[in-house]
């Protein structure tokens, strides 16, 4: 199923005045109602990409359509469909929570709607704090205020730039639940993160950006199948100093001071090679006390991708 794109980016590049090339020709389509995670190390170009779509940074070349509107020629319509939660906690310290959210709705061109603002504040557990000044709130609560501001004008596309950076575990879980609820209400969510766990937990699709290039865009489950590896760890009865030549074809690795053998295999291959390995080990008289297998996480895949390309 390929949903109609709600965000379409073509040939986007950005070179800053300093000469830094932050984006090198990015093409990307985001489907309506999907949760898309943009992964990448610090300085890869994630925030630049988001900032261009939201109008904070001027692109060097390229075209972007948001909810069917060109973000430059028809910026009013495009921007009124977009909500942004920046990475930093930028707040007006002396304003009350309810005033700052009402203000955001106004600057995005929407008429007053106290009932909707109340709903947003209740959904974010901010209603009880509505009359408090922002400076009196904790960091986690301020983060919620930022989200409430971004949702105040009922956007169709929501950008969350590192939504859970520096956030405690409880709030992170709350945030994930909120993102799922938003998706159910039809909002498309694009989040950047360098917590792979976050992408693995929530995203439908994942894009990996490195040095300004989108090196991969894939459905999360397919990505994990395609690039995912399984590993078999064998806890040996007697420590081993070198791998016998008879076991060379399995490309084993020794770890834990010779107490463990590690076998990496392709999870999707018809023949994993495990039965033959175990038979050969038995022939050679190598015993083991225990064994377990584990599937690589998105994090392993990501680290592999980024380091492989680094080496290339």
């Amino acid at each position, binding site marked *: 199923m390929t949903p109609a794109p709600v965000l379409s980016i073509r040939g986007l590049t950005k070179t*800053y005045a300093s000469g830094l090339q932050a984006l090198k020709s990015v093409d990307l389509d985001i489907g309506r109602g999907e949760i898309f995670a943009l992964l990448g190390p610090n300085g890869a170009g994630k925030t630049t990409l988001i900032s261009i779509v939201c109008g904070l940074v001027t692109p060097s070349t390229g075209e972007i359509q948001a909810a069917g509107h060109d973000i430059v020629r028809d910026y009013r319509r495009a921007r009124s469909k977009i909500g942004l939660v920046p990475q930093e906690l930028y707040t007006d310290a002396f304003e009350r929570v309810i005033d700052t959210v009402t203000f955001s709705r106004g600057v995005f061109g929407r008429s007053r709607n106290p009932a909707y603002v109340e709903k947003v504040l209740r959904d974010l557990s901010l209603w009880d704090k509505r009359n408090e000044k922002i400076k009196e709130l904790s960091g986690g609560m301020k983060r919620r205020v930022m989200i409430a*501001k971004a949702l105040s004008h009922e956007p169709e596309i929501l950008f969350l730039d590192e939504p859970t950076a520096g956030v405690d575990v409880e709030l992170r879980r709350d945030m994930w639940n909120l993102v799922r609820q938003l998706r159910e209400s039809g909002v498309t969510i694009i989040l950047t993160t360098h917590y792979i766990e976050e992408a693995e937990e929530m995203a439908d699709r994942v894009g990996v950006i490195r040095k300004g290039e989108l090196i991969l865009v894939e459905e999360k489950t397919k990505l994990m199948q395609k690039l995912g590896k399984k590993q078999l760890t064998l806890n040996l009865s007697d420590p081993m100093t070198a791998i016998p030549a008879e076991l060379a074809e399995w490309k084993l690795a020794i770890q834990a001071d010779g107490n463990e053998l590690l076998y990496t295999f392709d999870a999707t291959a018809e023949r994993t090679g495990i039965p033959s390995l175990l038979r050969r080990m038995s022939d050679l008289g190598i015993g083991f006390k225990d064994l377990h297998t584990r599937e690589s996480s998105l994090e392993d895949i990501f680290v592999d991708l980024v380091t492989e390309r680094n080496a290339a």
Partner: protein
Amino acid sequence: MSASVFNAHGVWAIYKFEMHRFKRTLWTGLAVPVITTSLYFVVFGSAIGSRMTEINGIPYGSFIVPGLMMLSLFTESIFNASFGIHMPRFTGTIYEILSAPLSALETVLGYVGAAATKSMTVALVILLTANLFVDVHVEHPFLMLLFLILIAATFCLFGFIVGIWAKGFEQLQVIPLLVVTPLTFLGGSFYSIEMLPEPWRTITLFNPIVYLINGFRWTFFGTSDVPVLWSLLATSAFFLICLAVVFWIFRTGYRLKS
């Protein structure tokens, strides 16, 4: 009007936000001009004015009222407008204004409109306070208001430019303190330039503030050191220059966008 043509809700939201900011410091904001005006009247009006009797047939105490109003209007306009736009740049909250469906005109209307409202209020408070000390008669009240609005809008636009140009809070003070205040004092706020010896009198004619103050004073007393039409032209020219610079800022994203 539809938000896809003119974002009136956005202008109103910014205006209200800024007015709310002023309200937080309402009493100091109004007490300062009242006290300062009273001090000017004690020092200039009573101490010096008693030796100066009249200028162009106007009692000295009344003569300085338009100048006092202008002095505050200039500094208040620049300070309020520059602070209004510099603060969101400093705290980072400007991201919201830049990502909102707001045109340059709408953004400026919100910020400059609010700053001008406040500085005009202060100028009118000074007028009311002055009335307690001297008799002030305004000969052309509508033209007085027109000059007041035009000059407030111009200096707020100028302040808006300063607020975007400034890299820190200390730079916000540089232009008002080092340029505007000296030019205002030398521009005939408290004296007629006719009283100056040559060559200072001719040199003073190159000070644009002279035209603003004299035009404004003309609306009070019907007399002026320079033709009132020149005053109106100079004020309008300064307004248009500031407007052009503000639109250039938004078009290029100068110090707003990278």
